[in-house]
């Protein structure tokens, strides 16, 4: 905030001299030298990248044991700093602890690749990712304070479960995995949604509520993305029809986990926002088996997609999430436009059709803009 602006407000009679001085004094005390931080950040990044490429290019000249020892010592230093100084650093800036935690975790993840290089071993990716989660997740859960660690944690979890499902399917592909395998993989891939009730229950009690909020939101986004994807797959009719019983059971199980996670979140975080988030997750769970039932039915599948997002818009309206409401309106508008082309794909082939399509896009866009401006709730405090 420029001091000039404050001066102008004072001249216009909006604030008195005492307020002006107080604001200027406050801003001087609390200014964050963002530009300076950016310069430091770029410098540190350049040094780190340089070190990595020097090591990568010459790593054969550096003995493997020495490299691994340095790598492990760096991790130990990070952990030691967290052990001894976490509280002190957090008091000064929580961001520093978050960055230290993130870097230590990243070093831990790269250690697996480093071991593979030195000992010429390889393994499917989900194994190191899963082991990393076992080793680091307790620490990250205990000390994570913001979105970087929350995103890393959920990102590795999602990556691990999907890589596991992928390789398990490939291996069992020859043996035709069957019902048991399909249910097991459905359970594994829907487990990340359970992060929502876990994080939701801790959110109110913890001093690090921002971290738990991020975890809960990523789990919610995963549920919504999964349901949207399932509805899109149904629209395109790409669910395999060969083993209907297996797929039905798998989608039903995924849906049940989603519904359970949503209900649990509703119970564990009883406020309005918790109830709405839980409702969205449960609704997304319900969509999964329905999407499979509507496979290859253009309009019902598209309607299911829009019902999901209309539900999200309604929940956002009730909970006062302005951005979410506007996003939901935008997604529904985009789906409407896509649907119109799905139903009348020859629109683009004639001049008149093109004009009609253009008018339709403009109309839907204008309507969506109107709705999202007119009805969007003010952000809840």
């Amino acid at each position, binding site marked *: 905030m420029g001091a000039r602006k404050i001066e102008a407000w004072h001249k216009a009679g909006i604030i008195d001299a005492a307020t002006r001085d107080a604001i200027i004094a406050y801003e001087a005390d609390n200014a964050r030298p963002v530009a300076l931080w950016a310069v430091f950040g770029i410098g540190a990044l350049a040094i780190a990248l340089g070190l990595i490429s020097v090591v990568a*290019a010459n*790593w054969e000249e550096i003995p493997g044991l020495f490299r691994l020892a340095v790598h*492990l010592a760096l991790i130990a230093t990070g952990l030691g700093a967290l052990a001894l100084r976490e509280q002190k650093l957090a008091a000064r800036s929580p961001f520093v602890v978050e960055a230290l935690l993130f870097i230590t975790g990243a070093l831990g993840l790269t250690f697996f690749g480093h071991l593979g290089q030195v000992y010429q071993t390889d*393994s499917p990716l989900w194994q190191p990712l899963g082991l990393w989660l076992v080793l680091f997740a*307790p620490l990250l859960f*205990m000390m994570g304070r913001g979105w970087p660690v929350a995103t890393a944690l959920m990102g590795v979890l999602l990556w691990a479960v999907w890589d596991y499902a992928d390789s398990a399917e490939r291996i069992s592909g020859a043996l035709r995995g069957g019902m048991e395998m399909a249910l097991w993989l459905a359970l594994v891939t829907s487990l990340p949604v359970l992060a929502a009730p876990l994080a939701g229950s801790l959110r109110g009690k913890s001093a690090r509520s921002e971290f738990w909020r991020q975890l809960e939101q990523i789990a919610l986004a995963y549920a919504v993305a999964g349901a949207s994807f399932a509805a899109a797959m149904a629209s395109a009719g790409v669910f395999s029809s060969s083993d209907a019983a297996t797929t039905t059971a798998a989608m039903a199980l995924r849906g049940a986990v989603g519904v359970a996670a949503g209900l649990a979140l509703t119970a564990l975080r009883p406020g309005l926002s918790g109830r709405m988030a839980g409702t969205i997750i449960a609704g997304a769970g319900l969509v999964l088996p329905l999407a499979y039932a509507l496979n290859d039915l253009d309009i019902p599948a598209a309607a299911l997609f829009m019902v999901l997002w209309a539900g999200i818009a309604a929940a956002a309206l009730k909970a006062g999430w302005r951005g979410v409401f506007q996003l939901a309106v935008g997604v529904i508008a985009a789906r409407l436009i896509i649907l119109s082309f799905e139903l009348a794909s020859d629109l683009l082939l004639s001049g008149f059709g093109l004009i009609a399509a253009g008018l339709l896009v403009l109309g839907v866009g204008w309507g969506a803009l109107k709705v999202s401006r007119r009805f969007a709730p003010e952000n809840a405090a």
Partner: protein
Amino acid sequence: MRRAARLAALVLPLAGLAGLWGWSHHLSRQGDEWEVPIMGYDPRDILRGHYVEFTYDWPGLDAADFSAPLSALCLSGTAPVIERAARASAAELATCAHPVRGPSEGIYGSDALRRGRLYAGQSRARELDKALRDQSQRAFVRFRLRPDGTIMPLDIVLRPFGPEQRPLEYR
């Protein structure tokens, strides 16, 4: 209680990674070193680092025979010289002196006994690339065969073609 949990969470990653390192190190010391000729190769440079990808040319085995999956081999000879490698069934493996089992879930999946990779530094990868193009020599992968039948590539060595193509002694 809370202090103890905190300490455990801090020690766990370090102990786990150190343990994994120790285990990898221990495994890398098991078994004998053998040499197997290779045919194709492909120097790669992917984010994981530089590596040479190659195709094994097991002595006595028709490399072009893809009619059946190659999941296990029985080697005969004395390390490091492979006299013959033969496809082996589970029963044959049990009596085999030097069994080789292909891991089913590595990067190469069921192809693990046909193809392999060796991580090498940037300059070493370039040298290998040049040497492998040289038609007058033959390339061998030196690998360690652990008692459980796992193979771990260690190095690529080159020997001139000649009356006796097989390595006579361990270099």
